[in-house]
């Protein structure tokens, strides 16, 4: 096999050092994405730094919100009482992804960094700017049914596959990372992932060697009116065609705050801020939901095979809002 070095990091500092000093090194957490990509020859790290022993698995109350360790398992996160109670949207989103077995292995940090499921990216015989910058994009002009309708570029039209990230975008989470200098910085969730632009090889704004340590959830008033809806080609164990994380704060029959994020539509979890604006101050009615859905899809630019995502996206927003408000 292709030889690589394997290091077990004892603490965050040494993990960050090890990866920072080797351009070919990568962290490995649950391995449920990275190992697949290595077997396919898509990722070819020269060194794996195992971070599963780091003490970053806690889920605890912090500053009115909740702090989730980067190495907490997806299953433990989804089922944690603090999350179930205050952030049911996140629970639903995590449980809508993958399978029980994979969620038992998958970590939160790894989930945020899972790579696109564009099938041309996965097949090393195909041209792909994300895998090999400058080779071209086989999906443009190819079968792009699963690809982006927002924010794509002429270099890459892939979508981010994470369900968890869609909920985190809606909940205004903050990602805490630690760099080679030992300092921590905070990245607002909506700035964490990137649009492809001219550098589709970069999925996110992490520097090489930066370690995600935790995800911070601010205090939320959305717990009683939120819903994660995932539309897919089979009932479970499939990535989203379109997904919607909807969260509302209602007050006196009016929508005080609204969050809508979409998955399966862009290179990053897509916040539909236009739709949110339409809802604020309005009553939670079907009519207003439809207006919000129309606003969300206004700037969509479909490709040859994914035109359906516009209508599907609208319907998914309406249904998610209905369910968030207990109307379905």
């Amino acid at each position, binding site marked *: 096999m292709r030889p690589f070095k394997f290091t077990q990091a004892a603490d965050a500092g040494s993990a960050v050092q090890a990866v920072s000093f080797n351009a070919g090194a990568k962290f490995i957490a649950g391995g449920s994405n990275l190992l697949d990509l290595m077997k396919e020859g898509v990722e070819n790290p020269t060194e794996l730094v195992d971070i599963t022993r780091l003490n970053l698995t806690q889920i605890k109350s912090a500053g009115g919100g909740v702090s989730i360790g980067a190495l907490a398992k997806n299953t433990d996160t989804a089922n944690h009482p603090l999350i179930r109670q205050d952030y049911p949207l996140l629970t639903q989103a995590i449980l809508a992804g993958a399978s029980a077995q994979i969620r038992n292995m998958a970590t939160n940090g790894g989930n945020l960094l899972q790579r696109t499921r564009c*099938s041309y990216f996965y*097949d090393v*015989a195909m041209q792909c700017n994300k895998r090999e910058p400058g080779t071209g994009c086989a999906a443009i002009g*190819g*079968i792009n049914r699963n690809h982006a309708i927002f924010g794509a570029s002429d270099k890459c039209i892939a979508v981010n596959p994470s369900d968890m990230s869609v909920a985190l975008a809606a909940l205004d989470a903050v990602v805490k990372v630690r760099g080679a200098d030992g300092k921590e910085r905070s990245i607002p969730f909506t700035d964490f992932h990137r649009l492809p632009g001219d550098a589709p090889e970069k999925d996110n704004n992490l520097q090489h060697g930066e370690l995600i340590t935790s995800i911070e959830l601010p205090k939320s008033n959305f717990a009683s009116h939120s819903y994660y809806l995932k539309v897919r080609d*089979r009932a479970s164990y499939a990535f989203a065609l379109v997904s919607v994380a909807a969260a509302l704060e209602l007050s006196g029959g009016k929508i005080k705050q609204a969050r809508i994020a979409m998955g399966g539509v862009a290179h990053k979890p897509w916040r539909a801020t236009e739709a949110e604006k339409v809802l604020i101050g309005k009553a939670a009615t079907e009519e207003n939901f439809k207006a919000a859905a129309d606003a969300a899809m206004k700037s969509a630019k479909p490709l040859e095979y994914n035109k359906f995502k516009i209508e599907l996206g609208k319907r*998914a927003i309406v*249904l998610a809002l209905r369910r968030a408000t207990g109307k379905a």
Partner: protein
Amino acid sequence: MASDTKVIGEAISRIDGLLKVTGAANYGMDWPIRNVAYAFIVKSTIAAGTITDIDTAAAEKSPGVIAVITHKNATKVVAYDPMRGIGILQDNKINFYGQNVAVLVAETFEQARAAARSIKVSYQNADSKTDFEKCVAEAVRPANRNDAVRGDFDAAFNAAEHKVDATYSTPIEHHHPMEPHSAIAVWEGDNLTLYSATQVVGGVQRGVATAFGLKPEQVHIISPHVGGGFGSKGGAWTNVILAAMAAKVVNRPVKLAVTRQNMFNSVGLRQQNRQHLRVAATAEGKLSALGHDTTQFTTTTNEFAESCGILATMMYEVPNSRVGYKSAAMNVIAPTFQRGPGESTGSFALESAIDEMAYALKMDPVEFRIKNEPPKDLSNNKPWSSRATVECLKRGAEMIGWKNRKPEPRQNRNGDNLVGYGVASGSYPSRQSPTSTLLKLARKGDDVTASVELAASDIGTGAHTIIAQTAAETLGLPMSKVAVKIGDSALPPAAGSVGSIGAASFCNSVADACNQAKTELQAKTDRKWLIAPTVAQLMDAASLNEYQTRVDAKAPADAAKYSSHAFNANFSEVWVNELTGMVRVHRHVAVTGAGRIMNAKTARSQVIGGCVWGIGMALTEESIMDPRWGNFITRSFADYHIPANLDVGTIDVAFIPEEDQFVNKLGIKGIGEVGIVGVAAAIANAVFNATGKRVRDLPITPDKLL
């Protein structure tokens, strides 16, 4: 003792079950062979053209590599099969994307795979035929298929008042047995042993022998357990030949497993079909014309046509019909048999069109079918050996609660789901094929044990078990006294587990062998009995502690006078989310008339398996080829969607009791193939009843219902 020997038909768990759940059953790759090396196949990345150069230098130096085999240095083998045998490294021609171009042999699988990535192949591209839409425009009638004509279809269709004229599409599907194809090849001199799971032991043996210029008996196939096949393990595909070649080249045993990704272009597929259906009926609901024209593709080296129109020739009493085929050659791996080959995809089109006709006539689709029930097989004018379509329809209607169905769509809801019901009937021919059995009896006092030996195969369906049941009951022994030896080419030749012939062929042969043993033993003694003697008494009377006999069984002479088929009816209740278009099969009912059911449990499991795959066919499964290059973009189970647990609602299975005296001595019809026939149509018809949308293009994914 009588009760534990009356076992035919009982719901008996598989006798190989314990071996399987404890990991003791050896599949193709599981055999512990000493000093084995591992092979990995490199695939072409063009669909048509020639290899101009292969640079193997880096691979040869890669850690652990023992040999790199390409067309330049491959062992010469004979072209043995135009369907399964393309890609055995005999020349530089490429016929499809993903054709084998090199084999790496290394000390470990990982080393072979890593080295494979460093092989550089240069190609000269030729014009490739990889766009189905363009290719079908040039489709022609296959040489081996004439139209099946009855009456005057054109005149009857043109004159009719009530018609349906619609085209239905089904995509490429892959078999994907749980156990991917593999082989371990071990040479001793000119004798070859291959551990390789197959549905047809003799077929693989013949293919390999031809390829290597050996006598069949020089090739020993060992295949006691098969992790599914569905038609893809019907003979020697290139992986078996390349394993044997690699073992010859490195002069040691070689293991070669096809990776899941490479299952898409290594072992056949079900081709894309476009079916044009024209149905006409009188206002009273009698069919007057039925046309079924199928357009499909085949590979450039072989002509294979799935017989989608075959049901149209015999399911209904229709005086005027015409069934035809057109096929276009494409640079795609060979299409091959896949569960219900022709009938399953054909029934989607036919039974959808029948549903459309019933709807147009405002008739209940169950009644419409019953009204057009044919008194005999009109395709050959033979009487049915038995036909349970009407009973299946009636029983299934009761089981699903057909009375809750509203004739008009969109009348039934549950929350934001639209609820619909659909029906389809189906059929698959029954046949007994030549099969020999060697029966060995051994006696210690009153205790007799039997060994039943035949080169049959068990693809996970329960062949071991029903063979044991047959022998036990015929010999009057408990099943624990019967040993079953199958899946070995050194045993007497047997039919394959294909085309639903397995149960009838194996069990009739085994029963014949057991009866013959009793007759022969009887003839060896003068003793007379008032009540029928046990085998122990017979052997005792003949002073024998050991006895063996062999039969070469075949179908009864009269069987050909009848048209013999298994028949079924499928009913589905679907829930369709009105907004998202996601379809869920909430309940599904399958009722089958398949003659004698040898084992109620394994039969039920077979039908459930057919229903699950039918759900996949209807809703989720599709292999998508990029028409620019001919590569599959659905290369893993993340993209090729087989139904997950949540896609499968409640499945109820029932059998209509049938005693068919004509089909074969034991009255067995077979259930494997028929299990999937009609399932997709019942679901699609239910989706129409729920939504008012007629999806004629499978699979019915959410986007098609917006």
